[in-house]
């Protein structure tokens, strides 16, 4: 499912003294099956942008094209509902959306809303809870008895069970411990590869972007500053510093090493790749 954003302008509280232009004449597109990261300093319009991609917000001007569905200023609820079937969204602190008596029922909520039967919804819920490593004996428990990290997994399963073709995640790891952080990030990568869906990740963690994303969109002040391959944008130290973003640790390390005369072939994208690159370099250069 391809998403195209064309001339999107988004104004909060239009025609009031609180009026605020969050996105200004924004044009970009998201290809199917790729892993995108949307980055930019706080207030740059990231959350606003992604809420337009599944119809939670409608354009003040411009259009958002999701497959063959068009979202405009006055699009009907029926179309928006269709869009939500295709584009799933995991919000920051998704555990705040839990409400049902049991974990299983809560995960079934989305699929049921999409018009599946009880049996189908239950099968889906079981499938995705298992995928997230929730043991079957826990299905009947209340979601409110769990720890924050576990609740988040249930909430994520609730979105995955809707089997969207595009999955948008807004700062999914905020407030998680390091282990859960890695688990959650690995999970998104895995479902992107296994089910060939598009992932759009909003985050402030440049290490995650560098490790997982194929493409990056850099926002500032409601405008698209740059878009392109991750290795091109996240290795541009000046660009990142200018927009108040961290430089990924690996990029920094590789650049430091270059200054000391240790020059790798390509840019390794994660710790394992870094170690391999270093071994190769040593094999060639060390006597």
């Amino acid at each position: 499912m391809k998403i195209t954003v064309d001339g999107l302008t988004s104004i909060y509280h239009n025609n009031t003294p609180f009026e605020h232009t969050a996105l200004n004449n924004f044009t970009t597109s998201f290809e199917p099956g790729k892993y995108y990261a949307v980055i930019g300093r706080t207030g740059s319009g990231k959350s606003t942008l992604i809420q337009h991609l599944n119809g939670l917000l409608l354009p003040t001007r411009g259009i958002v094209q999701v497959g063959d569905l068009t979202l405009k200023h006055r699009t009907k609820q029926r179309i928006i509902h269709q869009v939500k079937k295709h584009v799933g969204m995991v919000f920051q602190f998704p555990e705040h959306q839990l409400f049902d008596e049991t974990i299983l029922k809560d995960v079934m909520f989305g699929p049921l809303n999409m018009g599946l039967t009880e049996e189908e919804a239950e099968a889906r819920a079981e499938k995705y809870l298992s995928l997230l490593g929730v043991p079957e004996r826990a299905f009947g428990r209340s979601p409110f008895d769990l720890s924050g990290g576990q609740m988040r997994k249930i909430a994520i399963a609730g979105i995955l069970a809707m089997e969207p073709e595009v999955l948008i995640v807004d700062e999914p790891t905020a407030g998680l411990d390091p282990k859960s952080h890695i688990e959650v990030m690995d999970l998104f990568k895995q479902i992107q590869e296994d089910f060939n869906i598009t992932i759009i990740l909003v985050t402030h963690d440049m290490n995650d972007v560098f490790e997982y994303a194929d493409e990056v969109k850099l926002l500032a002040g409601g405008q698209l500053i740059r878009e392109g391959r991750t290795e091109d944008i996240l290795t541009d130290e000046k660009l990142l510093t200018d927009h108040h973003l961290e430089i990924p640790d690996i990029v920094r390390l590789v650049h430091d090493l270059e200054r000391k005369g240790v020059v790798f072939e390509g840019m390794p994208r994660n710790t394992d790749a870094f170690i391999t690159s270093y071994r190769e370099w040593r094999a060639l250069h060390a006597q």
Partner: protein
Amino acid sequence: MLSNMLLGRYIPGDSVIHRLDPRAKIVSVLLMMVIIFFANHWVGYGLLVLFVLGIIRVAQINLFFLFNGLKILLFILIFTFLLHIFFTRGGTTLFEWGFIQIDSEGLITGIYITVRLVMLLVITTILTLTTSPIELTDAIEKLGAPLKKIKIPMHELAMMISISLRFIPTLMDETEKIIKAQSARGSTFMTGRLKSRINALIPIFIPLFISAFKRAEEMAVAMEVRGYTGEAGRTSYRELNWHLRDTAALIVIIAFGVLLFLVRM
């Protein structure tokens, strides 16, 4: 949707009205509530509307914006208007059809009462638009000080009001977030039949209550660990200062009241 609602909202600004002592503003509003009832024919009502328009002007509030924000209350206004039109008898009969009869008296009273209501709404809205919630509660506590003599816990009341006011925007934000999260899961409380709409409220209210209770608990703990024990031994960080302009404001209001009283018929 909710964001258009103006009543109870504060917009920071720098007009004379904004800078008035909140006590002066509260007293003025109370006075105006009485004065509004002095008007009893068109001269009085005309003067009243002009005076209120003048205040809006001085407070630098956009007129269009103000009335747009009160649109939600339109229903109540129309209802009162119709009530008077149909049920007040007297004067000449303007219109008659079956058991429906409209008298000139009814039409006029309807208009007058509606103007009164609108002015009341506008006046109170101006108060909250130009006064921060903190100032409001400080003023309520100060103005209510005499009531402490008869064991009414004014400090606690003021504290409760200020905490509630403080949490209205937070709760609104929270509600909006939860609505978004659930509607991303395909929940449809905006469309569909009544029964399904009501059912769709459950996934919104339960998370909302849970987070509200959590917040209340955290807040209570945070206040306790910082040694809050109620009023005893507390001093104010913000002092309210009564200026000449506050006295002047009250005099203007009273003078207007006298004027309106004099033009009564």
